[in-house]
C-alpha cells in the first residue's frame, strides 16, 4: 500500500505542489518569525556582551521602583563616588556613566529620531577611559560645558559640521553646544539605530540628569582580583564611605561584568519575547487558517479519486489500506511542505531584517540564527497539522463503496446532511446562549467560550448557508454578465461544502478584523467624547516620549508668559510606589491646571493638592478603599518616602488614577518631564496669530508637536490606529492564505470540470468567456467569506464592546467604512486568485476533454 501511495503522489506532481503550498505558507511564517526572534535576541546579546566587554564591575544604586509595563526608575548616585572607586586597590579604571534622554537637532532645525517611536535618543558621558567603548573617529573629545560629540550616523543624518554649533535637547531644556567630534561605539556607527549626544561628565550630569549625579559607574580591574572579589571590595569601600557621611542617603550595589551583561540581556530578552509571542500568535493563526486549505485540498483530491479508490476496494484493498494510503500521502506532503516552508521562512526572516535596516534600525549583524528548535518545531508542527487536516478526508476515502468504480461520474457528494444542520445550529445556539448570558450579567470570562462556539457553529453550518447565500451574492453577476455570470453563480453553489471550506479562511480573517475594527471605532468615539469634554484649552503641545524623556518643564512656563496666552499648564508623569506597588503618578501644577484641563474633581478644589496630599480617581478610591481623609505611602525614585493625605477624588482617569502636585518632586533628582502642555489662548487673539506665537515657542525647544484641540483628539485616536495597524497585518496574512486557498480549489475544480469546459468550448464559449466564468466564481466565493465574516465580526465586536462597558465604552460604532473596504478588497482577492486558474481553464484541450471517459 505504501508503494501505491507513493506512486500516486509521484504520478501527480502538480497536485503535490498545490497541496504543499498551503503547508508551505503556514510553516514559512512559523519558521520565519522563530528565526527572526532568535536572530534579534542573539544580536542584542552580542551587542551587550560588547558593551560590557571591558567592564569587570558595575556600581549603581540599589534603590529602584518598578512601575507598570516593565518601566523602572533607578535612583542616581553621586558622581563623586567615581573618585572613591578609583581609590579602591585592584581598580584600573572607572568612569561615571549616564543614560538619559537627549535629542540632537539637525542642521535643518529638525530633531533627529522620532518622537517616542522607534529607537531611543540618548544622551551620555564621553570618556576616554578604558572601560568605555566610545572612541573618537573624527575631531576630539568634548571638554567643558559648551562642547558635545555625536555618533557617526547622527552626524551624517543631521548634516552637522565639526566646529559648528549643534542644538541638543535635554532635561534642562534646549541648548546650543559646539560640536567638537564624531564618535563610534566599538565598530558600530550607531547601536540599534539610536542617536547619541555625549558630553564630559559634569556637563552630562548637569544637562541630562541632576548636577553632581551619575546613573552608574563602570569599573575595570587590573587583573589582580576576580570580578566577584573586586565587586565585593568596591561595595565594602563605598558603603563605609557613605556611612561616614551622615547626610547621604544613597545605597549602592556592585555587580560583576558578567552579572550586568546578563541582566541587560534578560531585560532586552523579555522585551523582545513579547514581540516574539506576538509574531508566533500571528503565525499560528496563519497555520490554523491554512489547515482549512489543507483539509479542503485533501477532500477534493479524495473526491476526485473516488473511482480510483473504489477500484482499489473492488480488487481487494481494505478500508484501512485506502485510508492509510491517503494518510501516507499527507505525511509526505506534510514533510515536504514543512521543509520547503522552513527554507522559505529563513528567507522571510532575512526579509524582515532587511526591512528593519530599511527603517534605518542599524543592528550589528551577527548572521541569521537558525536554532535546532526552530527546525524541529517547524517540521513537527507542519507535519502534524497536515496529517490531522487530512484525517477526515482520508477516512471518508476509505468508506468509498467498491461499486462507485462502476459509476459514471466521480463528483463529491453534494447533499448537505440534516445532521450537519442540527449540529451546526445546536453549537451556534449554545454559543449564542453563553454570549447572551454574559450580556445578561454572567462573568465576562465566559465570553471567549461563547464566541468560539459561535465560530465553530458557523463553520459547521457553512455548507448549509453557502448555497442560498452564494446564489444571492451571484445575482448581480448573473444579471450583468449574462450566461457566464449565471454559470459562475451556479458553479459557486454547486458544491457547497467545497465553497464553504474555500471561503472559511476569508471568513475567519474578515471576522477578526471586523470585530477589532468595530472595537477600535467605538474606542475612538469614546476618546472623542472624553477629550472634547475635558480639554478646556484650545491648544496642546504633545510628545510621544513617555517614561523616557519628554517636554522640558520650562516649556510650559515660557508659553504661559506669552502675551497671546491666557493660561498654560504642563502635565507630567513620575513613577512611584503607592502603598508598595509601582505606579505612574500624574504631576500637575495645581494653580494653573484647572483652567486648561477638567479632571472632574468631586467637591474639591485643585488648590487642595499640595506637596503633602494626593488626589485619587473615584474608581481607584472605591476599589482600594481609600476614601478622602485616608493616607497613602508614596515612595519616589529618589528613595524618599512620603505620607500623603487623600485630599480629593476625581472622575476622569484618562491620565491615571493618582494625581500629585509638582511640588512633590521639585528639587529632587527625579526626572521630571511633561507629557503635554495644555494651553488656552486669549479670546481676542486670532487663531493664526496665536498659533504662530505658540509655534515659535515650541520651535525654540525643537521638541513636541503643537496641536489644536481637534488635532489633539485625532492624535489620541491615532494610538488606536496603531493597534489597527497590527490587525491589518493579520488581515494581510489571511488574505494571502485565502488567495492560495481559492487558487488551489479553483485549479482542482477546473481540473474536475475538464469535460464540461471542453463541451462549452465546443459549442461556442470563447476563451475570454471561460475566464469570466472562473473569475466570477472566485469573486462570489471571496465575497461569500467576506459577507459572512463581516456579519460575524460585527456581532463579535458588539459583544466585546458590551463586555467592556465597565471600562467606559458606552457607544458601539459600526465600522461601515472598513466593511466597505473589506468588501472591495475581497472582490479583488477573488479577481487576483482567479488569474491563474482561469488561464488554466482556457488551456483545456477540447478534443481530449471530450474524449475522456
Amino acid at each position, binding site marked *: 500500500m505504501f508503494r501505491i501511495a507513493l506512486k500516486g503522489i509521484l504520478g501527480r506532481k502538480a497536485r503535490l505542489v498545490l497541496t504543499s503550498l498551503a503547508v508551505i505558507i503556514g510553516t514559512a511564517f512559523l519558521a520565519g518569525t522563530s528565526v527572526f526572534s532568535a536572530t534579534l535576541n542573539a544580536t542584542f546579546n552580542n551587542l551587550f556582551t560588547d558593551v560590557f566587554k571591558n567592564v569587570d564591575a558595575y556600581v549603581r544604586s540599589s534603590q529602584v521602583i518598578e512601575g507598570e509595563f516593565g518601566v523602572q526608575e533607578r535612583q542616581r548616585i553621586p558622581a563623586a563616588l567615581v573618585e572613591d572607586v578609583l581609590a579602591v586597590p585592584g581598580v584600573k579604571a572607572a568612569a561615571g556613566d549616564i543614560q538619559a534622554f537627549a535629542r540632537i537637532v539637525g542642521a535643518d532645525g529638525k530633531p533627529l529620531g522620532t518622537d517616542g517611536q522607534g529607537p531611543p535618543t540618548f544622551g551620555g558621558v564621553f570618556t576616554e577611559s578604558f572601560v568605555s567603548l566610545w572612541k573618537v573617529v573624527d575631531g576630539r573629545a568634548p571638554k567643558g560645558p559648551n562642547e558635545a560629540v555625536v555618533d557617526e550616523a547622527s552626524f551624517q543624518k543631521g548634516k552637522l559640521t565639526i566646529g559648528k554649533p549643534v542644538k541638543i535637547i535635554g532635561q534642562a531644556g534646549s541648548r546650543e553646544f559646539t560640536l567638537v567630534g564624531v564618535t563610534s561605539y566599538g565598530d558600530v556607527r550607531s547601536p540599534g539605530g539610536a542617536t547619541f549626544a555625549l558630553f564630559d561628565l559634569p556637563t552630562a550630569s548637569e544637562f541630562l540628569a541632576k548636577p553632581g549625579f551619575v546613573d552608574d559607574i563602570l569599573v575595570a580591574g587590573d587583573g589582580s582580583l576576580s570580578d566577584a572579589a573586586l565587586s565585593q571590595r568596591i561595595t565594602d569601600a563605598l558603603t563605609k564611605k557613605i556611612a561616614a557621611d551622615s547626610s547621604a542617603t544613597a545605597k549602592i550595589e556592585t555587580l560583576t561584568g558578567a552579572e550586568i551583561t546578563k541582566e541587560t540581556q534578560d531585560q532586552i530578552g523579555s522585551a523582545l519575547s513579547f514581540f516574539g509571542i506576538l509574531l508566533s500568535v500571528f503565525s499560528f493563526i496563519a497555520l490554523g487558517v491554512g489547515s482549512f486549505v489543507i483539509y479542503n485540498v485533501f477532500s477534493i483530491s479524495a473526491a476526485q479519486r473516488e473511482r480510483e479508490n473504489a477500484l482499489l476496494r473492488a480488487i481487494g484493498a481494505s478500508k484501512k489500506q485506502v485510508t492509510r494510503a491517503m494518510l501516507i500521502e499527507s505525511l509526505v506532503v506534510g514533510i515536504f511542505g514543512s521543509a520547503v516552508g522552513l527554507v522559505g521562512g529563513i528567507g522571510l526572516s532575512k526579509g524582515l531584517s532587511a526591512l528593519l535596516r530599511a527603517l534605518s534600525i542599524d543592528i550589528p549583524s551577527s548572521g541569521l540564527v537558525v536554532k535546532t528548535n526552530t527546525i524541529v518545531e517547524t517540521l513537527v508542527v507542519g507535519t502534524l497539522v497536515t496529517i490531522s487536516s487530512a484525517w477526515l478526508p482520508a477516512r471518508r476515502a476509505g468508506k468509498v463503496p467498491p461499486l462507485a468504480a462502476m459509476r459514471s461520474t466521480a463528483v463529491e457528494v453534494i447533499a448537505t446532511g440534516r445532521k450537519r444542520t442540527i449540529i451546526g445550529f445546536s453549537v451556534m445556539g449554545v454559543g449564542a446562549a453563553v454570549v447572551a448570558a454574559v450580556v445578561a450579567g454572567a462573568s465576562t470570562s465566559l465570553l471567549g467560550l461563547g464566541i468560539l462556539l459561535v465560530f465553530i457553529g458557523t463553520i459547521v453550518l457553512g455548507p448549509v448557508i453557502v448555497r442560498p447565500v452564494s446564489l444571492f451574492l451571484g445575482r448581480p453577476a448573473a444579471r450583468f454578465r449574462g450566461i457566464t455570470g449565471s*454559470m459562475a453563480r*451556479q458553479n459557486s453553489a454547486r458544491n457547497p461544502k467545497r465553497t464553504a471550506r474555500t471561503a472559511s479562511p476569508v471568513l475567519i480573517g474578515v471576522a477578526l478584523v471586523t470585530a477589532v475594527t468595530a472595537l477600535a471605532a467605538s474606542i475612538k468615539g469614546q476618546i472623542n467624547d472624553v477629550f472634547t469634554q475635558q480639554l478646556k484649552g484650545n491648544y496642546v503641545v504633545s510628545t510621544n516620549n513617555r517614561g523616557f524623556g519628554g517636554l522640558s518643564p520650562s516649556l510650559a512656563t515660557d508659553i504661559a508668559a506669552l502675551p497671546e496666552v491666557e493660561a498654560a499648564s504642563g502635565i507630567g508623569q513620575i513613577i512611584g510606589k503607592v502603598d508598595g506597588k509601582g505606579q505612574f503618578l500624574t504631576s500637575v501644577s495645581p494653580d494653573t491646571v484647572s483652567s486648561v484641563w477638567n479632571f472632574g474633581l468631586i467637591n474639591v478644589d485643585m488648590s487642595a493638592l499640595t506637596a503633602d496630599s494626593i488626589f485619587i480617581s473615584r474608581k481607584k478610591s472605591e476599589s482600594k478603599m481609600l476614601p478622602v481623609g485616608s493616607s497613602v505611602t508614596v515612595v519616589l525614585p529618589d528613595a524618599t518616602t512620603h505620607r500623603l493625605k487623600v485630599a480629593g477624588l476625581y472622575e476622569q482617569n484618562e491620565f491615571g488614577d493618582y494625581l500629585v502636585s509638582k511640588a512633590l518632586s521639585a528639587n529632587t533628582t527625579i526626572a521630571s518631564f511633561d507629557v503635554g502642555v495644555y494651553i488656552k489662548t486669549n479670546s481676542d487673539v486670532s487663531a493664526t496669530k496665536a498659533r504662530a506665537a505658540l509655534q515659535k515657542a515650541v520651535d525654540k525647544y525643537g521638541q513636541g508637536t503643537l496641536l489644536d484641540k481637534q488635532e489633539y483628539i485625532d492624535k489620541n485616536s491615532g494610538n488606536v490606529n496603531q493597534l489597527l495597524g497590527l490587525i491589518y497585518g493579520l488581515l494581510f496574512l489571511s488574505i494571502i492564505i485565502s488567495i492560495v486557498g481559492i487558487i488551489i480549489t479553483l485549479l482542482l475544480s477546473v481540473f474536475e470540470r475538464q469535460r464540461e469546459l471542453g*463541451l462549452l468550448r*465546443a*459549442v461556442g464559449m470563447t*476563451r475570454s468567456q471561460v475566464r469570466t466564468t472562473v473569475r466570477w466564481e472566485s469573486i462570489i466565493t471571496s465575497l461569500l467569506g467576506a459577507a459572512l465574516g463581516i456579519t460575524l465580526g460585527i456581532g463579535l465586536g458588539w459583544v466585546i464592546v458590551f463586555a467592556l462597558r465597565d471600562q467606559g465604552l458606552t457607544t458601539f460604532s459600526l465600522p461601515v467604512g472598513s466593511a466597505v473596504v473589506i468588501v472591495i478588497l475581497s472582490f479583488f482577492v477573488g479577481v487576483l486568485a482567479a488569474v491563474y486558474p482561469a488561464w488554466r481553464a482556457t488551456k483545456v484541450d*477540447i*478534443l481530449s476533454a471530450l474524449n475522456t471517459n
Partner: protein
Amino acid sequence: MTTSTLTVAASTKNAFKIYGHGDEAVYALRDVSVDFYEGQFTAIMGPSGSGKSTLMHCIAGLDELTKGSAVIDGVDLSTMKDKALTELRREKIGFIFQSFNLVPTLTADENIRLPLMLGNNKGNEEWIQNVINTVHLRDRLTHRPSELSGGQQQRVAVARALASQPRIIFADEPTGNLDSTTGAEILTFMRKAVDDLNQTIVMVTHDPVAAAYADRIIFLADGHIVDEMTEPTAERVLDRMKSFGN
C-alpha cells in the same frame, strides 16, 4: 432528390492529418476530399482508428488539418484564429456528442439555448419553440440534466444543436450510450430534422442500424475514403462492412 440541385454545406480537399514525424508519422487522414450537401443526412462509417472522428473534428473546427483544407459555408477554417473558430462553432455548427452533452448546472431550457446565450443572441423564438415541441421536451424544460434519463438528455442535446439554426450539425456516435429503442427515437428525431426542417447533419457512427437512417454513407478505412453508398439499408451496410473485414 437529384444531385444537380445540391449545394455544398461543408467540404474537405486533399485533407491530411498526420501525427508525429518521419518514420514514426501516423496518418490519421490521408488525402481525403469530400463534400457534405445541404439538407442531407450523411453518415461517416468505418472501423476503429479509420479516422472517421478525426475527419469530423477537423471539419467542425475542433481540430486542425496538417495539410489540405476544410471549408464550412465557404470559409476556409485553416485561416481562422481561435476566437473566430469559436464563434463559427457557436453560430454555424451544432454538436451532438456520445455522452456528457449537457452542462450539469444549467436547466434543460438553458442547455438548449446555451450557444445562443453565449453569443448574446436571442435566436428565433418561434423556431426554438418548434424544436422543443419536435423533441417532446416541453414538460422537462426546468429540469437539470441529473433529473433526466439518458434518452431525454440526448434529446436536449439534439434540441440544442438545432436551436441556433446552424448550417450544419455534427453528431459523434449520438446513440452510442443508449439502448436500441431510445437510440431509434433519437435517430428518428434527427431524420425528422432533416426532412421537416431541412437541416444538414453529418453523423459519425459504427452502428449499421444508425447509419441506415442517413441519406448517404461515406466509408473510411486507414484514413481514406474507400466507398460511398446512397439510400442505405441496415442489411446493405452490414454486407459492405463485412467486406471490409476480409
